[in-house]
């Protein structure tokens, strides 16, 4: 667990970057620091691995004041991922990943074996191991950056806007990859971003900071969306809070019906159990939308229903086979239930 205990960072010119910050980043969870530029989110993150030292207050790592640990020793025990990946251009990918193991004195073979394991783990082809950073795309470099941070298996991972320099499609896949990895590894992650959607998607807990380094609200994403603490947080969260909140409501709550229950004469056409489209009478095949009840959110289910003139979302299993449909009435009930909390 990482604890900020009334931490203040004041620079020589009197600028206050972080002001009396107190919060906890629980073990095994992702805590996101989010806020506009100048809110001290990166400064706060960098006080954990002592890239910056606090002026007042203490940062504790599992109860130990970090300022009692020699910075290089502290940093070797904390994974660190930065925006441009910061890979060493003169080293091959495999040696980049093995940086911290080498520093810790692992023998070369063991360090490289570990590096190859991690490349696979972050979804990279191990053929890339013998290349140099400039030969990789931005997204691939960022994956290498994550692999490097994980190489010595540190319990804590600090990520400073790691995905903000890649295009939206790659960013989404990197975010999904991080969530999948976290599901296996259960690291204590502190993640800094200026993107509230990223914060809501990734965070178990989200700390919204305002300019001047003061904590505006610390809450889980669902609470943040439904009960913003003040106008600043409300404005920062932006539009569509109601719709976005539905992504935290599991679609498993939606009552499913047999496809024959579709209203308006719509018939679900299937092939080998998989949906092909909706048809009314002898009309053309119309599009359909699907969701997986055990995996997706109510937002996905609602979206699936809006995609089709039939007005029903098709529920499928993980293999894509139809297990039922969610009618408008069923979705309405689920929405009403979600609104009640």
């Amino acid at each position, binding site marked *: 667990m990482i604890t900020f205990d009334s931490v203040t960072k004041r620079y020589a010119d009197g600028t206050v970057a972080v002001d009396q910050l107190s919060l906890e980043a629980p073990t095994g969870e992702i805590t996101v620091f989010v806020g506009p530029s100048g809110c001290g989110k990166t400064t706060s993150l960098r006080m954990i691995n002592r890239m910056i030292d606090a002026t007042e207050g203490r940062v504790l790592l599992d109860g130990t004041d970090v300022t009692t640990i020699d910075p290089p020793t502290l*940093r070797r025990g904390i994974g660190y991922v930065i925006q441009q990946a*910061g890979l*060493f*251009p003169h080293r091959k990918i495999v040696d980049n990943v093995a940086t*911290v193991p080498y520093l810790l004195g692992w023998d070369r073979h063991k360090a490289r074996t570990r590096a190859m394991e991690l490349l696979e783990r972050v979804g990279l082809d191990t053929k890339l191991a013998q290349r*140099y950073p400039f030969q990789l795309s931005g997204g691939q470099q960022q994956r290498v950056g994550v692999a490097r941070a994980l190489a010595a298996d540190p319990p804590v991972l600090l990520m400073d806007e790691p995905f903000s320099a890649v295009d939206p499609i790659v960013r989404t896949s990197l975010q999904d990859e991080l969530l999948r990895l976290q599901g296996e590894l259960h690291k204590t992650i502190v993640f800094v971003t200026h993107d509230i959607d990223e914060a809501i998607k990734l965070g178990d807990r989200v700390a919204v900071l305002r300019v001047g380094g003061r904590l505006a609200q610390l809450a889980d994403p669902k609470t943040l969306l439904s009960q913003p603490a003040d106008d600043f947080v409300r404005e920062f969260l932006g539009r569509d809070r109601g719709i976005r909140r539905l992504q935290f409501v599991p679609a498993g709550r939606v009552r499913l019906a047999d496809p024959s229950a579709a209203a308006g004469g719509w018939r679900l056409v299937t092939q080998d159990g998989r949906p092909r489209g909706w048809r009314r009478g002898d009309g053309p095949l119309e599009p359909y939308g699907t969701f997986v009840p055990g995996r997706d959110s109510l937002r996905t289910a609602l979206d699936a229903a809006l995609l089709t003139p039939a007005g029903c979302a098709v529920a499928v299993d993980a293999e894509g086979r139809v297990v039922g449909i969610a009618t408008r009435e069923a979705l309405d009930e689920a929405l009403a239930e979600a609104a009640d909390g």
Partner: protein
Amino acid sequence: MNFLLDFFGDPANWSGAGGIPARLLQHLGFSAAALALSALIGIPLGLLIGHTGRGAFLVVASANVARALPTLGLLVLLVLLLGTASVWPVLIPLVALAVPPILVNTFEGVRGVDPELRDAAYGMGLRGPQVLGKVLVPVALPLILLGLRLAAVQIVATAAVAAYVGLGGLGRYIIDGLATKEYDQVVGGSVLIVLFALATQGLFTIVQRLTVSPGVSQRVRIPR
């Protein structure tokens, strides 16, 4: 052309204390000593200033002083002060000439490394000297070698002044030839110095290929 044939065709020019091999060796000796000394001063200083960011004014000052310093004047002054018993009157002006390009390029090389990269190195837990040795130097190596190459070529070309104060080297052909109006000697000596300078340039190109990581020079084909 005839001068060259006269000079290189004369067997007397190929042996003895005044022969091409001996003079070449002397020239090489001065140049190597001057370059080694300059590197010993310029590289550590450039690394230190570039890494710590302290003392950058020294780099600027040295570059300006060097531009203003007349090599020949300094040489004569040192001969008057120290005599011709040692090689120092020749070495000191050459070092004064060669330190600035080495210092400036080493400094710029280290200072020019992407701050994100430096940040990542510290963030991984490298200590200050490790950041310098394992990251900054390999990444700055092309510029460090450029400084050395410029210095070496300048030294080789300028080391001819050694002859001016009675010391050996390829400059002797030029000085002696001018004095005795044997122009084949002047031309031959000049050609030798030019060839030597070109060879130095070539040597550094090879060293660069061998020592700079393909990841830095980006001189590697992408597999498949």
